[in-house]
């Protein structure tokens, strides 16, 4: 199954981001699947250090290594994009 169709995976990713970035005042359901995580539209208000936290958490929890900031910007855009990167699968 493609990551963006896997609700359990997306919930896990949202929970991970909330925990790693200490945004406990936001509930996973409040993070929309298609909203850019690092943008003014996102309620998360993440910064570059949050990006680093997420990058290391992805490696530790999912075994996914993001080699550089360029790759991070390409794959960690929205929850759907990130889920598809972790779990490409087929729809």
């Amino acid at each position, binding site marked *: 199954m493609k990551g963006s169709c896997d609700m359990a995976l997306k919930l896990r990713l949202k929970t991970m981001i909330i925990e790693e970035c*200490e945004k406990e005042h936001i509930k996973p359901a409040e993070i929309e699947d298609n909203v850019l995580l690092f943008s003014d539209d996102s309620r998360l208000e993440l910064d570059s*250090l949050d990006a*680093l*936290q997420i990058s*290391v*958490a992805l490696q530790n929890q999912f075994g996914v290594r993001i080699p550089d900031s360029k790759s991070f910007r390409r794959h960690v855009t929205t929850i759907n994009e990130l889920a598809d990167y972790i779990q490409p699968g087929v729809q």
Partner: protein
Amino acid sequence: MIFIHAAGIHNTMPRERQPDLAEELHTLTGKIYRRTDHFIQLAILGAHKAAGTRELPAQTAIYLTSGQGNISVFTRICEQRRQHNLLPKPVDFINLLSNSAGFYVASHLALDGKNLFVTHHHFPAQMALLAAQNDLRLGRQKMVLLGGVDEWIPRQELARKLLGVSPSTQLGEGSNWLLLNSEEKNALATVEVHPQLLSSSLLAALLSYAPRNTSLIFSHRFDREAVSGFMRRYPQCRLFSPEEDSGYYETHPLFTLSSFLRQEKGRLIHIDTDGNQYMIVTLANDLL
């Protein structure tokens, strides 16, 4: 001689887990400190209590000391790397840097003066006081906010091993801060660190000339028998005992000094030892 203008005590004896300080900090300061850990929260809490409602001059220096530093994060990172082969969290790594707690204290109190972390194998609190004493006397600093921070960790066996204390020692945690100044005006007390370690004969000479009713307090490194021996030899002195319970932690001398300020009027001699020699700090709050 330097002067104490304010003191802040945060001292606890946890039993099973570290107290959640984030909520307490939020209640006290009205702020949420993201990316802070227990050690940093302890530091902010104690410094906040010492500063009180004062607006400190921006150039106030911060001298922070700790016996074990950020030990809970340090052990977590070591385990992640060595046992689980995981990368440390970037925030943990950053917070482990010796002066991260100092950064957060400076940020909380809007200070941009010197920010120093003092470490010493046996006498971290006294050495930080000595550094402040020298800098204030030499006019290098006008005001120093000096804090000793040590955290309690649930892994008591490990903590006792690192501290080199007996298995029965009750451990605690504290963040005790003094606002120091070279000016006497509005001061609460004077404090003086003897810059050299004393032999037992020099200590005996000092104590034999101690004025009547001088209070003595001995660090946790002295056992009950040794303390009784001292008190028998110097009957003109009395033993000071803080009202608030506390467990052992290495920057405990700052808790003792602050407790005396809160409880008593008079002169206190704090005596600590590395097993061979003695380190003395005197405090007086009856002459100002």
